[in-house]
């Protein structure tokens, strides 16, 4: 059995400590500029990683993160395994929390306008992303074999909307409870669900391991698992929560059980050939949907995951990727053009067909073009699976940053017209 030795333990704990402290400091700094803390956490990673610390103070970088500085010795450095496990658990928990935000009843309540906005704001970006990669495959360094899958993946990234970011913008602008606000939120929720389902299929398509399942098996499994969890599973959770919340110690009892079910769901989807994140995401939807889940419990789960585990993942992005070497301005510009044109247009068309007025539909279009955490997770998983390279990943991160900075002023401009 591989164990962490004395020195490994010190390195592991120092890495974690540095990651968490730097992440918090930069999150607070970014908060002063009214920017999401996730951006601060990524910047903290860039500063601690090969781009800055590794470049200017290589000895410090090697001491603090030897498993990153010397990847060739990865197999002999057990810290790498420990860190990898921590990052994986963080992503699974992040997806669980992301799932908790999806409220399917809200989508059903919004009806036609949410459905048409979802449909067009997914269809057009996926088509544009796909065609964009076909047009300049060299820019995405996609080989002939995987150009279609890369195109499809880029389309999915362009189609997703950052729910928490746009929710906060809408709340701050007092638009949340308006028809525009509800259309945006309901559509973004449905897109999240569909986006992760599609991405899971993409991941299973590029899986070249021996345990790979057939596409039809994967699709049937996803439908059965999702169908069960979102109907019977969510009802069971809803009915048992009042009992758990009164009989078990609070909030510890719910916190432990919810994360336990999340990990079981993740393990189940992994075992049937779908990525573990989908299981966590769907279990999150089933949990978050419960009307019996106390607001305070929900808040504690959010606080726990977003302030302890999320920073580990987001800082690790900057640690593993050299943002300076992989900064390709042409690719970034091209991706920004694809994203802004396709998402704004797609959501606008969908909202118009759904019955919104022209100005309101433009507001929906602009707001839906807010990208965030999920796109970064998508990108990092795709990079880990070998679907995209580091340049494309850096371009996705830049797209997220630019869209977060621009969406609020653009939305204000349209709404105040």
């Amino acid at each position: 059995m591989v164990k962490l030795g004395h020195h490994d333990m010190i390195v592991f704990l120092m890495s974690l400590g540095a990651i968490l402290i730097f992440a918090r400091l930069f999150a607070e700094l970014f908060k002063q500029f009214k920017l999401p803390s996730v951006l601060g956490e990524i910047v903290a990673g860039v500063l601690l990683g090969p781009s800055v610390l590794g470049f200017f103070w290589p000895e410090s970088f090697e001491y603090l993160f030897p498993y990153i500085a010397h990847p060739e010795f990865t197999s002999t450095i057990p810290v790498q395994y420990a860190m990898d496990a921590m990052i994986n658990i963080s992503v699974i928990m992040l997806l669980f929390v992301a799932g908790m935000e999806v409220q399917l009843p809200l989508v059903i309540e919004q009806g036609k306008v949410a459905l048409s906005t979802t449909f067009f704001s997914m269809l057009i970006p996926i088509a544009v992303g796909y065609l964009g990669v076909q047009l300049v495959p060299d820019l995405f360094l996609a080989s002939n074999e995987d150009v279609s899958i890369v195109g499809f993946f880029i389309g999915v990234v362009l189609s997703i909307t950052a729910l928490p970011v746009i929710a906060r913008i809408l709340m701050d602008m007092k638009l949340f409870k308006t028809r525009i606000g509800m259309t945006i939120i309901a559509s973004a929720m449905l897109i999240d669900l569909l986006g992760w389902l599609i991405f899971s299929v993409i991941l299973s398509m590029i899986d070249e391991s021996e345990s790979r399942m057939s596409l039809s098996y994967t699709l049937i499994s996803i439908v059965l698992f999702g169908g069960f969890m979102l109907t019977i599973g969510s009802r069971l959770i809803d009915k048992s929560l009042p009992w758990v919340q009164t009989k078990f110690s609070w909030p510890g009892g719910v916190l432990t059980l919810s994360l336990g079910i999340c990990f079981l769901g993740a393990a189940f989807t992994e075992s049937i050939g779908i990525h573990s994140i989908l299981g966590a995401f769907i279990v999150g939807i089933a949990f978050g949907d419960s009307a019996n889940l106390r607001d305070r419990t929900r808040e504690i789960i959010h606080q726990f995951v977003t302030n302890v585990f999320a920073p580990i993942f987001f800082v690790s992005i900057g640690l593993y990727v050299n943002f300076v070497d992989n900064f390709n301005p042409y690719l970034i510009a091209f991706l920004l053009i694809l994203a802004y044109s396709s998402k704004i247009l797609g959501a606008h068309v969908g909202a118009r067909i759904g019955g919104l007025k022209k100005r309101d539909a433009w507001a929906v279009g602009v707001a839906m073009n807010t990208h965030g955490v999920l796109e970064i997770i998508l990108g990092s998983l795709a990079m880990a699976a070998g679907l995209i390279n580091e340049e494309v990943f850096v371009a996705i991160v830049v797209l997220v940053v630019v869209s977060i900075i621009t969406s609020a002023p653009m939305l204000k401009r349209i709404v105040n017209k």
Partner: protein
Amino acid sequence: MNLAKQLKDRLPYPFEIIAVAVTFSPRYKAVIREAARLSRLYRAKLLLIYVGELTHEEKAKLERCVDACHIKSKYYQIVDVQGDVVSTIMRVCKEHVVDLLVLGALKKETVLQHYVGTIARKISRTAKCSILLIPDPKERPLTFDRVVVSAVDSAKTPLTIASAIYVANMEDAQELFIVNEEYIPMFESAYADSSTDEEIESRKSDFIKECKTKVSAILDDIPGASSITIKQRVIFGKPGHSIQVFAKSKNPDLLLVNSPKKSLGILDRLFPHDLEYLLEDLPCNLLIVHSRGF
């Protein structure tokens, strides 16, 4: 004036025509007595709707039951019509311009009943007039002393509050709770990573202030609002579910809510929201106010 226009131009109150759906279940007398009490109090004509063909004995039974409630024959009418139960009751209500339909209902349904749908629930999900569901009809009906009305963020809410004030005045209720159900689905995640407790609390208290101001503005426009004791509350949670929890804790005699925005179907039962939470387990008598064309 054609029927559609007549219905569209009619406010949900006063209750001038009250209907009751009749079956010969063990509770039918109690349900009729509840409807008869309302008919007397609100000076409304009482319509007894029976789906099927009534025999002479059955009709006489119904007449005896209504007569025992001291309602003169000119103030009530028995209608027996054939057809599908739900659509027939709804058609009769429309033709007679019924203001309030009284239905006896189970407090809780079994899982199968919930998904298949019982008559009272089916009507509640699709009706075009106000519905009063009575889960525990009494042989000696009681007045509605404690009334709760749900005030969600909807264009229908002012009329529902006005209806609640009308009912509370007619019933001489001791207290009327106007409960704002505030639901901000993304609140925790939107502010989870970058807000202090103080900031979150201040945002929440801003919401509460806004809600109370909105309700006060509505009350200013409703005549009769000043003659009853009104208590305002703001609760956070999913609409329908949070008011159900509130009603269970306050144990009112009557709860008033908005009618659904659209007819509710199986998807709404699979992914419940608003009225579906209440229909799942009725906390007390439930009046679903239909705002008609307004």
